[in-house]
């Protein structure tokens, strides 16, 4: 930053283009950063530690649905259109 040049970001955690992921929804519903990104604070080089596959996402969505973790919910969490539009 002291050099005045922009940071050259490199994307580590990536989901495919047809997945719509909203951070605010997850954070508001008490899904912590570590759940998906892992313990970044302990990584020398940041890497992806979770599979981020559909089944991995859906497992969590199913559990949330059962446990009614979500504070408020207006549609099913396992509808395809929850993530794909």
């Amino acid at each position, binding site marked *: 930053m002291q050099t005045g040049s922009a940071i050259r970001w490199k994307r580590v955690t990536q989901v495919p283009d047809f997945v*719509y992921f909203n951070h605010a929804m997850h954070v508001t519903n008490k899904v912590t950063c570590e759940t998906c990104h892992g313990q970044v604070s302990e990584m020398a080089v940041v890497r992806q530690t979770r599979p981020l596959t559909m089944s991995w996402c859906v497992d969590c969505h199913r559990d949330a*649905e059962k446990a009614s973790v*979500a504070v408020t919910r*207006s*549609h*099913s969490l396992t509808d395809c*259109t929850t993530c*794909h539009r």
Partner: protein
Amino acid sequence: MHIPELGGASDLREFGDEQGTRPAGLPRRDCVKLLGASAALAGMSACVRAPDEEILPFVRASHNLPGVPVHYATSMSLDGFATGLLVESHDGRPTKIEGNPEHPASLGAAGIFEQASVLGLYDPHRLKSPRLASRKPNRPWIDSRPSSWHKFEQAFDNANLPRRVGVRGEGLMLLLEPTASPLTAAMLARVRERFPACRVHFHSLNQNAEQSVASLTGFGEVVLPQYDFRAADVVVSLGADPLGWGPFHLRHAHDFSDRRRRSNRVRLYCAETCPSSTSTLADDRIAVTPSGIARLVAGIYDEVARRRDSDTGKLASSPIDDLNRPTANDRPTLNEREQAWIGRISQALRSAPQSSIVVCDSSQSEAVQLLVHAINFELGNIGSTVWYTRSSIIEAGSRSHQLSSLMEGLGSGEVDTLIVLNGNPAYTLPANADFAARARVVNSSVYLGQFDNETARVSTWQLPATHFLEEWGIECAYNGVQSIVQPLISPLYAGRSVAELLAFIAGVDPGKETNGTVGSAGIPSLGQISGYDLVRAQFFAANSAASRVNSEETWRDAVRRGVVENFSSPRVSVTPRQSEVLSARGLLHRQLAAEAGVRGERPKAVANEVASVELSLQLSRTVHDGRFADNAWLQELPDPITKLTWDNAALMAPGLAAQLRLETGDVATVKSEVGSVEIPVLIVPGHAEDSLTIALGYGREGAEAIARAVGVNANALRSSTSGMNISDAKVSSTGRRVELAITQRHWLVEGRGESILGHAVIARGVEGRGVESSDAEGSGVDQQIGDSLHPVSTKRKSSRRPLTLYEPPTDTKVGVGADQWAMTIDLDQCTGCSACVVACQSENNIPVVGKEDVLKGREMHWIRIDRYLSDDSASRIDVQPMLCQHCEKAPCEYVCPVNATVHSDDGLNEMVYNRCVGTRFCSNNCPYKVRRFNWYEYNGDVSEPGKMQKNPDVTVRARGVMEKCTFCIQRIRRAQREAELAGEPYTGPVQTACQQTCPSQAIVFGSLTSRDSEVAALSELPRAFSALEELGTIPRVRYLSKLKPEEG
């Protein structure tokens, strides 16, 4: 030439065709791709930059988050008048255009041109930098080389310009499009200050000069008629298309449907040459030739005037010359059919005193226009449903709007420098004007425009103009309400606006000016002129002049809302001068008699396989005067009535076609006095016999790759004196055939009318048309709807649900009461204007496929407008928006082998692109035929700038997958997400893109389970039905059938 080498990464194989073969030749899509790819390589590195000046969002956002779209108010002007818009911007990229609910011309709706203009912004064929053509005298344009604004500035600077055009500007000629922009007016005034002798002319294909002159003759000043369709019980449209065309048509459609929803007294009568959007709602329509419309106007006037005389004895002593009073003897020669129609009209007009509107085609002669004013006057409409405002079009009605004066000026040889600001006169001027030759005579011609079109090609200087999404401006709506145009993006291609160039010519330096005083200290360079300063200076100067509050706050408010408060034209109280009306009547009668004489002598209809017909030239309903011809969305948008895409055609009635032994697709020769064209025939039931309609705007010959060679240029048939209606044209067959890309070839319901369109008749004397409304006036109607359940006879059961073993899907994982999405479409309101089709296209990233694929039935629109005609005379025209019906028992879902289309808990038929393997079973099993398949990598063809239009909230579909309407799932989920983030369950309304833009509010969307749900109430109305209900698919889209007054 391999596409990948040119940068296009798309797969050229058709789905299922693994050999990679392509049809021979270079189809249009490839052509577009090549150009797109070359544009991409030419350094368009997607540099999205917000304008430097402060622009203000419509709804004040507390923060501007990446990925969260922001709406800005601006306005687009077409044919001189503005429509207020809200533009959705994703991270600095304008992606979608919607109507501004606060703007009087929009009321929240946007038409096809406004919406599609966002694609025009990213058009890869726009002029990218100034170019200078080198040429020898009297030779055509030979070579144009990249130049720069700086060089242009040097050539026309303070010293050079007066030397070229003279100190008083004798050699300067400006050619603009008619405009009501106060900023342009101010800048023009400044140009005239500097060059008092310069010539200024206005030209466009849609100039309505006849209207202005008629009003000047009849009222002594140029006024614009304003209509209040909310107060009109009887509307008579004589060749006009008030609900589908014109600067205020969105407003008219909104008001008309509002009135019609509340009252079953509203009647719409249409006389026209070719069926239009408006006539789809007509209670009574008659097909007549253009001269027939003039006859009807004369007939109605006589009827109305005679009644006035007989009704009120005292008016007989009015200053009307008794000799001129119409008598039964000197009436125009009307045939029985026309006579009967006039009889019905007169009766209807009589039953609605002071609450009718008579409108007529703006291309009719001055005499006809004036008589229509007089008819409205005689009916007592003026002051109630019709009133006048002073025309805000600059110099309307003056010689600068006359074609003859433009021709004179160009041919005079005194013009040294011709400056054309927007428009495309080389294309839109009549054939015998030969603009190209005249432009060559002048020393240097400057063209400021967006495209390298016909005019650019005959100009010395080609300067890139800004798109309205790139410029600052002040525009004026049809009723005089002013609005600020604010840019959403910095000019993509170094364009400058008309106002900026005018300021440069005038030597205005807005930076040095305070309150409109002229800054005389040196002429500024173009770089110093900014549209922002010009607009602000004009805004504050106008505010001061009107002695209104002049603060930074008013400015910010005007920019943010897109409407300048308290700035509309006042009503002017005028009455038509009786003497002029009577002389117009006399003139018209003489003309009609003369024409009838000519027609009498003319061999009746067909002789030697040549028919002699009247020809009506109209602006294209999809590409306007050709300015949108490079817009692929509009080229592929089916015409509301003919369903023709990618072409224009000679529209004719089945009778005439049979006489000439022509069929749809046969190429005919059409000859007028000045020229002839060869054009395919398209048979349109309901078209007037003995006449042809041809759309202008096609057959473009500029460098725009999409516009080029689509259709035929019918301007060749016009002469500078003939106007748009040509009384004698000859048609004959050439014996050749071409294929026309028509999206719906059949037009009969084949006896399944009730199953497709429903059936409802409204009884006499029952208020309301069975649509509830929540406001005060409507609540009375609500009560009566309850009472009217019996009088409204529907042959269909009103029960939504057929007998079934299965439980209705209300008990979901989310619980009882969760949203169940549904839609109703009121066929009694829909005009088939197709605004919804374009809205859907821009919201949902729907690609265009090109003519070849439309011919194979592969168009991709998620919502289409089906139209059905009752018979050969199209006495009834039905239009029906057809989209995925979101069936509760969806046939598509059962047959998908990979579960790519499934049902959601909230009642949506979901389409999962990443699961789809392209079996197309679902499409085959869909009874509504609304599923669309990506046969090619249609989206891979999108040029680099075109990609910026894509909505990032919707997947861009790849080759080999099925797609269809999602009920704008991205909007539903966003609304729910926002509510949940706020900690509340979602309750608010979600608008789908089609619903949002529908001018007549025919589409209602919502949840069946939410309280006070409008959609639930509507879908239980007696006239609600499901399309193909007998199949048991239980669609979530319910149609409200069109009402027909009970006979007798």
